[in-house]
């Protein structure tokens, strides 16, 4: 896609999915990028003892999952003038190190408010390799006319 216009977007349009494998390096880099050093993410011995999420493994940041869900929209449309204005996410299952997650989004709502004010809502679901939903996100996106 070289241009993005609100009139060209249809309900149900699917955005290109993305996938990430959650290695400890991915978690560590996210911890540094978020400045979130909760030991459940970065302290392997502590995570094994505390079992906060019922697993001995470290787990990915919920905000990393949210970042990937936002990336579904940003990678598809961000360079073409789309701006995310609202993000609401829920995390329904922890993502332990070693897991692979796929993020899929589609257009859920159209908001034709007029020139310069048009937006859509994209619904994104994050699914682990077992087929379980680990997170969902609803993203309001302002779209060029």
């Amino acid at each position, binding site marked *: 896609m070289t241009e993005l216009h609100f009139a060209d977007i249809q309900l149900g349009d699917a955005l290109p999915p993305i996938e*990430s494998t959650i290695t400890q390096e991915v978690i560590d880099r996210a911890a540094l990028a978020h400045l979130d050093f909760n030991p459940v993410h970065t302290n392997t011995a502590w995570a094994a003892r*505390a079992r906060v*999420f019922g697993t001995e493994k470290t787990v990915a940041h919920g905000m990393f999952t949210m970042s990937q869900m936002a*990336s579904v929209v940003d*990678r598809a449309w961000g360079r073409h003038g789309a701006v995310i204005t609202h993000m609401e*996410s829920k995390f329904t299952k922890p993502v332990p190190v070693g897991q692979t997650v796929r993020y899929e989004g589609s257009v859920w709502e159209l908001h034709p408010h007029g020139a310069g004010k048009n937006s859509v809502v994209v619904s994104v679901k994050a699914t682990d390799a077992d087929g379980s939903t680990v997170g969902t996100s609803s993203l309001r996106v302002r779209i060029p006319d």
Partner: protein
Amino acid sequence: MSDRNRLEQYPTTAKQRSFEWDFTKGVENYEVWDEIEIGAKGTGAHTYRIEEEDVVNFNVAALETDPLMIDLDFARANGGLRFHPLFTVQIAFYCVDTGIGSWVRSPGARNPGQTIEVFEPYRIGEAITATITHHDKWVRRGSYYMQDKIEFRNEHGTLKTRWFATLLLPKTREDVQRFASI
């Protein structure tokens, strides 16, 4: 390899190098669920000045490959760096220290979901401050939820982003300290 040595491989910014990497330290000064007063309001302990290296590092950690997000020279020559939509997260954790909002660091916390509103894009060089309000706390199915409203403004007072930050927390100071000492 120790956790610390493993993490030492990755920092690329001054903020990352100066930040405390062990959230089990200082828990005695964290706010805790059963002591938090809803409606209390304050300013985050630190002001965040947005540097190019912060943006690039965040984008790389988010697994971005767009040169406008991860190649500074390319971005400078092509209209400037693109920010990741979740960049607010780094600003939030940097601004919060052991004062108001410090519960976000609690060992044993769990993340049920988040809501972020974006009013204006961030720009390189802006100095961002966080105004934190203890917005709500509640109990559901035996879990203790805490929610702050955090508003991020630049040096001109322009509202950039609002984050309703929510976690499930250990209930008491003893609970938090027990998690920290596991």
